[in-house]
C-alpha cells in the first residue's frame, strides 16, 4: 500500500477546501473512523490555511501537500517556500496569532487532532509541517 498523492497550488484560499477533501478521501481508504477523518480534515485545513495566510504576505507563492500511506496510518506534509516562522515555540502556543480575527489555535488543533506534529521552518525560505495520523 505504498500510495501517495502530491498536490501543488498557489496561495489562494479556495485551495484550502480542495486540499482538505483530497486528504479526507485519501484517508477514507484506510481503517479510520468517521471522527478520525473529521480530525484529519481540521488538521489539514489549519496547516494549509496557515501557508495561505502567513507564508506569503502580499505576494503569490506555491504550497505543496503530500499525502502518504504508512504501515500504521497516513502522513501529511504541508510545505511552503515563504517567509518562515521566527520562533516556532511561540507560534505553537495556544492563542498566539499575528493576524486579526484569527484565533491562534491552528497549531493547537493540529497537535490535538493528529498523533504527531513536526514543524520545520527557516526564516526567509519556508515552513514544512509534517503530521501523522495512526489508523
Amino acid at each position: 500500500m505504498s500510495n501517495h498523492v502530491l498536490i501543488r497550488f498557489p496561495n489562494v484560499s479556495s485551495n484550502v477546501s480542495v486540499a482538505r477533501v483530497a486528504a479526507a478521501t485519501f484517508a477514507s481508504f484506510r481503517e479510520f473512523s468517521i471522527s478520525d477523518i473529521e480530525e484529519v480534515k481540521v488538521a489539514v485545513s489549519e496547516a494549509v490555511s496557515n501557508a495561505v495566510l502567513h507564508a506569503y504576505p502580499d505576494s503569490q507563492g506555491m504550497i505543496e501537500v503530500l499525502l502518504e500511506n504508512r504501515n500504521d496510518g497516513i502522513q501529511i506534509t504541508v510545505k511552503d517556500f515563504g517567509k518562515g516562522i521566527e520562533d516556532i515555540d511561540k507560534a505553537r502556543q495556544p492563542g498566539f496569532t499575528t493576524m486579526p480575527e484569527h484565533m491562534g489555535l491552528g497549531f493547537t488543533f493540529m497537535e490535538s487532532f493528529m498523533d504527531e506534529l513536526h514543524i520545520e521552518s527557516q526564516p526567509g525560505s519556508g515552513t514544512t509541517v509534517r503530521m501523522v495520523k495512526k489508523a
Partner: protein
Amino acid sequence: MQIEFHVAPLFAIARVSGELDLSSAEKFRSLIDQELRRSGVPNVVVNLRNLSFIDSTGLGVLLGRHKTVKSWGGKFILTDIPPKIVSMLEMAGLMRVLETARTEGDAIRLIESCRYANREEASTNE
C-alpha cells in the same frame, strides 16, 4: 458555504450550510453584515444545523461577527449546533463566550425577553 436569510422585524435568521473555513470566511462576514445593514434589524440568529465543517478560521469569523453585532447593540445567537461543531467551539473556549440556544424558537424567545427587559429598564429610567 451558503446562507439563507429570513428577516422578521426584530431579528434575521441566517441558516448556514456547507463548510466554514478560509475559503468561505470572507463570504460569511460580508453576507451577514450586508443583511444586517439592508434589513436594519439588530439581532441575528445563526442556525448551524447544516454546517458540515468548521476550523479555527471559521471559529474566528463566528467570534468576529459576535463582537461586531454586540457592538451594534444586537445579539448574535447560534442555534441547532451539530455535536461535531459543539466540540470545536468547546476546544476553542467559545461556548462560554458566544451566545447559544437549542433551537431558533429558543433564540427568538431570548431576543424578545431581552426586548421587554430593555423596555422595562427604559420605562423605569423615565
